[in-house]
């Protein structure tokens, strides 16, 4: 049986752990609200943007003159996976789930004989994938210094991607992030950004409305202008969703941790009281038997 002093120390240490997890939970809750707001504010732009893009892409179609970002390189050999995760841990399965999805995809691509390249955004994803795919890493974007994700950050990532695409370093690019559904559920998501994929439902809606648009300048020039922005927009909404998911995941993870610490404190306190009782009983027995012996 552990002695009283040890038990007391352990209770103290679990109590301070509980304080920390509780504080982290509250910080995450506050940050979550802000991250959620940011994600919601960005939604109108992304929705409208995609609607217009789909419309344009559908009308330009697969013609040879269509921009490469829409048409693709005509090949399907080199895949670039952009894995976006958090910079910090202690947020439940958040980082691991994204990394898992990316790993499954990378392995299945490899099994089909494709070349895989990986860019990581956020330290945790890099750490998780380093062992298996370290040799496939071509770049890493550090987001440690970024407090509130701005469009500029997304643009920087997008530019990196587009430069590589122009140099012919890859044929298909996919981004990995976690979609924020609610505090307890975040869905790891894979989205193809290059070549641009037409959102079927948006295109169909427009077919119903049957509106003929004027374009200024012509459709293809607009599309060429918009496609690079589309990549940035997709990355931006991915990053924002990620931001909200991370805080949500951390909040529930820390809530669990706080609860577990509470249970542990209860158990330890019972054990402590029992041992104290046992010590007292022991002392009493000693005193009584001592008295009887006289």
């Amino acid at each position, binding site marked *: 049986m552990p002695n009283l002093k040890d038990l007391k120390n352990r209770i103290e240490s679990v109590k301070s752990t509980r304080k920390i997890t509780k504080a982290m939970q509250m910080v995450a809750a506050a940050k979550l609200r802000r991250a959620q707001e940011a994600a919601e504010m960005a939604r109108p732009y*992304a929705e409208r943007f995609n609607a217009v893009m789909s419309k344009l892409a559908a009308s330009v179609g697969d013609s040879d003159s269509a921009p490469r970002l829409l048409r693709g390189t005509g090949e399907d050999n080199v895949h670039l996976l952009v894995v976006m995760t958090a910079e910090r841990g202690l947020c439940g399965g958040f980082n691991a789930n994204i990394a898992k999805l990316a790993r499954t995809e990378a392995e299945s691509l490899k099994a089909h004989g494709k070349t895989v390249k990986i860019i990581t955004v956020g330290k945790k994803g890099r750490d998780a994938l380093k062992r298996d795919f370290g040799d496939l890493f071509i770049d890493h974007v550090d987001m440690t210094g970024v407090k509130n994700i701005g*469009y500029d950050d997304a643009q920087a990532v997008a530019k990196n991607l587009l430069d590589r695409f122009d140099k012919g370093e890859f044929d298909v690019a996919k981004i990995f992030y976690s979609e924020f559904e609610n505090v307890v559920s975040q869905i790891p998501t894979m989205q193809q950004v290059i070549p641009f994929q037409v959102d079927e439902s948006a295109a169909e809606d427009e077919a119903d409305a049957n509106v003929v648009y004027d374009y*200024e*300048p012509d459709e293809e020039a*607009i599309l060429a202008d918009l496609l690079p922005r589309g990549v940035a927009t997709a990355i931006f909404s991915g990053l924002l969703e990620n931001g909200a998911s991370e805080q949500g995941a951390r909040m529930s993870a820390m809530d669990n941790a706080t609860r577990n610490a509470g249970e542990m404190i209860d158990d330890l306190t019972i054990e402590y009281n029992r041992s104290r009782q046992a010590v007292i009983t022991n002392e009493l027995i000693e005193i009584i038997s001592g008295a009887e012996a006289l």
Partner: protein
Amino acid sequence: MADTVQFDLVSPERLLTSVAAKEVRIPGAEGDMTAMPDHSPLITTLRPGILKVVSAEGEADYVVTGGFAEINADGISVLAEKAIARDDITQEHFKTLVDEASDKLAKAQEVYVNEPGPVDDAAKLLADMVAMGDHIGLSAN
């Protein structure tokens, strides 16, 4: 004929304004245009410039740096890359925008040595930016 049209100005980060507008002056890539209710459907890209919204509450100006506008039966949506209310823009702010445009030009000149297209585009962007600054009384230097 309706006398107002739903107008939304959104940047990637947020929805800046959503009002029933009487007219909207848009700095289109191929020239300024004024969109009024029942305008024919149109999609245009923007150049850096001033976007003016006239609504029942009065006039509001925004500085936009590019993006595009969509006009259809439901209303007018302007999706700007960056949009700032004119009153909020400062000399410093404007300076960064101009610097960005100059950087882009310098880079374009470096990368596309024998292709005038991208260089001209970048030069036009910078010129538009400076012209816009003159218009609102901010200097590019």
